[in-house]
């Protein structure tokens, strides 16, 4: 099964470790940002969703952006810097890198995956707000928590009747 980068802001403790880890692995450019919203008391780690039917891939005229089974990637050699992907992406993810005149975005730490290591952001995240796992594992864990709550409720109900 394909592993996905699953981000759950509920668990985020606002530390920005992911930003710094990403920056270290990607030549001083971070592809994940943490938005800390103090009034809402919530922080949101924000990065590429690696859409199945990715608008950035659809609009890219040179096939610099492409999708594989694992995610959406950029071939920098093909990128002509037209910025159509920036227009198309509903999440505002691709960044234009002025120094190299190409677009960059999260590559799921391909160089790490090749060595069987998870992406840096998921590796460093202290609180499980960013995990790299199979989708079924996420749903299984959530269901587990809810089922145990229901068991608790049923037990209580039984003692009351």
């Amino acid at each position, binding site marked *: 099964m394909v592993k996905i980068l699953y981000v759950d802001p509920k*668990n985020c403790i606002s530390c920005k*470790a992911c*930003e*710094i880890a990403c920056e*270290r692995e990607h030549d001083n450019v971070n592809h994940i940002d943490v938005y800390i919203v103090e009034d809402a008391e919530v922080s949101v780690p924000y990065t590429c969703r690696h859409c199945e039917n990715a608008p950035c891939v659809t609009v890219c005229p040179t096939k610099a952006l492409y999708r594989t089974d694992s995610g959406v990637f950029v071939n920098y050699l093909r990128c002509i810097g037209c910025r159509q992907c920036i227009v198309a992406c509903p999440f505002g993810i691709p960044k234009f890198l002025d120094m190299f005149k190409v677009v960059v975005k999260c590559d799921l730490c391909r160089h790490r995956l090749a060595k069987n290591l998870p992406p840096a952001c998921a590796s*460093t995240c202290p*609180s499980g707000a960013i995990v790299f796992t199979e989708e079924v594992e996420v749903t299984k864990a959530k269901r587990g928590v809810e089922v145990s709550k229901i068991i608790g409720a049923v037990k209580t109900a039984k003692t009351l009747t």
Partner: protein
Amino acid sequence: MSESLTPVVCPYCGVGCGLFIKSLNGKYVGIEYNYNHPVNKGSLCPKPNDLSFLNSPHRLKKPLKKTESGFVEIGWREAIKEVAGRFKEIVNGYGSNSVAFLASAKCFNEENYLLQKLARLLGTNNVDHCARLCHAPTLVGMGRATGVGALTATFNDIANSEVIVIWGANPAETYPIVMGRYIMKAKNNGAKLIVVGPTKNKTAWHSDIFIQVRPGTDIAVANAIMNVIINEGLYDKEFIERRVDGFDKLVQTVSKYTPELAASISGASAFAIKQAAYLMASSRKGTIVWSMGITQHIVGQRNVLALATIAALLGWYGKPGTCVGGLRGQNNVQGSCDMGALAEFLPGYVKVVDDVGRKRIAELWGVTELPRNVGLTLPCIFREAESGRVKAAYVMGENPVISEANSTHVINGLDRMEFLVVQDIFMTETAEHADIILPAAAWAEKEGSFTNSERRVQWSFKAVEPPGEARPDLYIIIDLAKELGLEKYFNYSGPDEVLLEINKVIPAYAGITPTRLKNTPGGIIWPCPSTDHEGTRILHVEKFRTPSGKFNIIPVEHQPPAEMPDDEYPLILTTHRVVGVFHTNTMTGRSNALVKRWPEAEAIINPATAHTYGVSDNEVVKLVTRRGEYLVKIRLHQGIQEGVISVPWHWGANKLTNDALDPDASTPETKVCACKIVKLR
């Protein structure tokens, strides 16, 4: 040579995370996560994600001597000769107690052990370190109540708790791995989180109940919680009967602390106090942990006693899923305390005034007697220096000019001394005042053991080469001791031999030998009395380590802070820390990815307070207290009480703070003083 990975322990806070340093030809090139490490399973907070300070061009590379024309480079031989010569001269001229040593919670156990041994063999107990500024009240308070100053159980027990109380701490910023891996895990398994403190900080964002108190009113709230627990009969009666002394005294003391009285003292809501008391009492598996918000008060030790007593009422001791104590702020502050780098304790918490214990250590060291009077604590060292009684100091890896309360007096003290030696990896604010600066190797450039907040002793291996002529602290101390004529007591070839001596001197470390430690990834938790002992995760299982074997309740009364707001200084000033900066910013301030995100201090105030004083978001103002002035940018924050201003201390705000001391632990009241805002335009 090629790229290699070396296992090290993180150099920052007291969690003790493991990671690998990636090096190429002996130079730092990056890090890799240690997914199998028992503490952090790979996870790291922002700080160790950028350790590029190791390669900073500003690292100290040669010994320096202060001259008329500034610092000049000198050779090691000359530097050691000069230091030893001046120390001998001063000891001979003014007596042993005219010199002082500052050990370091950033250095290995072996190095701290040697530095305190050096001080004591020179005839003085004037050896102390920054534990004095943080968890000395925990050490003393928990020591009196339970017999051991350290955390009662492990982080895993926090994860298995059903109720977690975080009081005067912000682990989301200061202890991210404990917050993320343990507290959030417990929460996701259904545990309830109660946070008490003056600011609704990033930890409190995740709380079920947040009790907002004015700085310095914690005892009133703690006593009110106990008042409710007792009056409603919610305490663990069996535990109280079997394992606790002094319950009746407590009942008497807390009876007057109704939630309503506590509310009027603290500004907290009486309803929240009652709610919290009920929630805490809903489980016999709970955690209470605290940090500087509890300890840095004139009543720090009494705050600790109050919190330890709440846990005793609820039976939160000696079993899995319970954990009580201070979250320690530096990677080896627990170890430096264990090693006796404290004015009143020899290694293993043997009191210097304890004749039997002191004799035993003297014999092990091969001397007839050791100094028997309690030495000067850290704040007192600088006071005595200012008044001219301390003539020389040896500072290893500490930066008191930034970390001490009322730091102007620290600077005066340093400048008044006849001779000051600073041994560090960078030219710190303290080093600027030195006569001799000795360039030290950073933690990754040497090897030795660290003890984390859980009492977990771990070996950190050498990953990279030190820059220039920088040397490991251990060998500098050995060379100095030899030059001082103490060679027969400092006959060590390296850290292994020092740890073997520690095994003999400190019973709790007896089984933690160098060979065993190097072969035990994740380390061993003390007490570990023998080499076949696996270590002790949970303390006080059968009985407490007090003389009676029972928990010793010492009831405490509320006492206002030493300095309260008045007409001239109408605001309460408190301090806090931020996640991407560590303490005095010596290391994090030279790591680009961190500096970029956390470039400067931002003082937080409530928008209503800002309105009252006519200041706006991002405005730079002058904060003034009776001790000093400090320019800082203002940031508005809904989560802080009106009338309170909180400033991060990493960048020098301790010019402002109060150095009134806790009489029991000698810790300054850094967390509360009176302050005013002066507009610049």
